[in-house]
């Protein structure tokens, strides 16, 4: 009996220690998500995308003619950029107002539900508040949508803009070097692969190629990836952020810690 009591006592202590009151905190409940793929299927978006596709088709024909007239690489680049700009302008003109209305609708629903961040559905596996239907209803209504009066409160979900981090000199240099290496290796292995006479030979060549790339990646990029991850975690801790996702997955709100990570990485 004593043993049983003692066991129970020890278990209770361990259990209590495991879920100590000091460790209990309110769960995150202010995270919402939107199914952007579903929003893209709303009739105004479908019509706009169709219009944009028709424009692109016409523009592609013009581009093909124009690029044939470009003799140097610089000319080709100039023509490409010019057409890219034209397309972006049209995209802004056609889809821009719709995006803006959708964004304001998301902000409005978010304010109503007291959310601190809205992310894309594809990164939420479980839980969170699905606000897609509310956003759709507001977006499709005839009424003008008022932008929320206050900015969202601080969020424990942070984000980093990977494109900004990719622009850091050391990251850019490593990526460029890796690309250059991959390109050289491709030029080296592709003719070997084309000349291979059996499946076994082809497999071996392909494995060698993959290994060369993997080794270089291990040497060149993996330390940087690890460094970035640690810098991001450190920055998150300083800003009281629990989890950090990519900027591209955040639709509204959230805590931007990109500058903090940049600082950590350039220390």
């Amino acid at each position, binding site marked *: 009996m004593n043993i049983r009591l003692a066991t129970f006592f020890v278990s209770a202590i361990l259990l209590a220690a495991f*879920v100590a009151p000091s460790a209990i905190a309110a769960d995150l409940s202010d995270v919402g998500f939107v199914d952007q793929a579903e929003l893209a299927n709303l009739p105004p978006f479908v019509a706009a995308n169709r219009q944009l596709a028709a424009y692109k088709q016409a523009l592609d024909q013009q581009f093909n003619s124009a690029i044939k007239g470009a003799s140097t690489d610089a000319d080709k680049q100039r023509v490409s950029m010019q057409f890219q700009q034209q397309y972006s302008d049209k995209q802004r003109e056609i889809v821009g107002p719709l995006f803006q209305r959708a964004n304001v609708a998301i902000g409005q629903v978010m304010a109503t539900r007291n959310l601190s961040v809205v992310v894309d559905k594809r990164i939420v596996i*479980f*839980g969170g508040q699905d606000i897609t239907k509310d956003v759709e209803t507001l977006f499709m209504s005839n009424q003008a949508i008022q932008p929320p009066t206050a900015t969202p409160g601080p969020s424990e979900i942070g984000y*980093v803009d990977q494109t900004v981090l990719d622009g850091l000199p050391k990251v850019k240099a490593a990526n460029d070097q890796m690309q250059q290496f991959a390109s050289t290796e491709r030029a080296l292995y592709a003719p070997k692969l084309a000349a291979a006479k059996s499946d076994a030979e082809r497999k071996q060549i392909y494995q060698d190629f993959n290994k060369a790339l993997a080794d270089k990646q291990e040497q060149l990029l993996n330390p940087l990836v690890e460094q970035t991850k640690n810098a991001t975690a450190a920055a998150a801790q300083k800003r009281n952020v629990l989890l*950090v996702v*990519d900027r591209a997955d955040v639709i509204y709100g959230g805590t931007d810690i990109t500058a903090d990570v940049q600082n950590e990485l350039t220390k």
Partner: protein
Amino acid sequence: MSKMSSPSKRARVAAFTLAILAGCGPNVHSSSVRGAGYVRVDEVIKHHPLYSQLSQLDDAIAAIQLQAAAPHVPLSAAQIAQQTKELTREMQDAQARAQKIIAQKQQDYARREQQAVAAALAAAGVPGAGQYAAQQMSATSAQQAQAAAQAAGQDFVAYQQSVMASDNAAASSIARQLQTQAAEKYRAKAEQLQQSETDLSLRLTQQDAAQSLAIKTRMSNLALDEATRKQLEGQLAALDAKEQSQLSAQRKSDAATLAAYRTQLDNETNAALREQISSIQSQTAAKINERRNEVTAQLRNLGPPALPSDLSPGVKDKIAQIQKQFQGQFQADAQKTVDEFNATQADLNRQFAALHGADVGATGAAAKELDALQKRRDDLYKEIVDQIQREASRIAKDQGFSIVFSGVDAAAGGYDMTGEVTKDVESLHE
């Protein structure tokens, strides 16, 4: 009681206690977790039983892409002409196929539309509806319109084929000319280098002639002792070796120059060829577009037979609705055929470009295989990820999480569920 105090029982109790604690899982509601979990899905995928299949598909895709990156050996004019002919035939077949399918669909939808209109007229009790129906079903005018549309379509295809054939012939002729020019330039360079090697050989012989003659004169002395004779023979051999060495160095250098010149000529020929082909192709496209516009304008004038003029607004609306409905259905259906044709045409165009030296990646059968593999890979990846997400959701629910993310860049808190989800996914297939 005494049993309980035995060491083995104590161990069992301790194990039981630990098991209970372990069964409780993480402290989901602690201040560092706050009900938030995350799964590194890319990591779990590696432990999924179907991962090896996914890897195989990835490897197969990458191998095709790698093979497509191989620089192409410049083709001869005859090879280009032959392959161009084959591609042209494929393009013509694809066009004819698409035209036939669309014409068939057009007839089918028109017939169904006419039946629906006739039925609507009959239902509305329009006088002479039966006669109209008969007219619609078998009217000479409808047949004529259909025949005219078909003839215009065939005429357009024939025109398109003739323009493409003549332009391809022009392209092949240009290719031949450029390659002949390149071959002549190469031959001239080779002759020039060969001449300079002959000159060098002559120069070296003349340069050493006096010394060589002196040695040979001394060697012709019959009273020469054996040792001196051998020494003189050595000197003569050294002179020869020196000449041969210089000559061979020159030949090696010339061979490298010639190889570099060959590459330069190939590049120049391909660039010139590409430019000429591009110009021809844009002219071809312009001619075909012009004719297409003419044919479309002609076809626009060929409408269905007129409806009776005294129809009530309600019946007119009904008929307009039927026409709109069938027109919409036909357009959507025809668009599928057009999309399929466009995909085939795009691939054939890439093959044309590749034929003329452009780096366009995988084409033809390789491109088709690549597409099929990519689709299989995407489907399999989705299947794997869906299963991982289902398992993660179940665990999250059991353990009381409020939210679980995938694709987290870094974490200063929250709970990493990757290990548990991995075990779960693995155990599902044991």
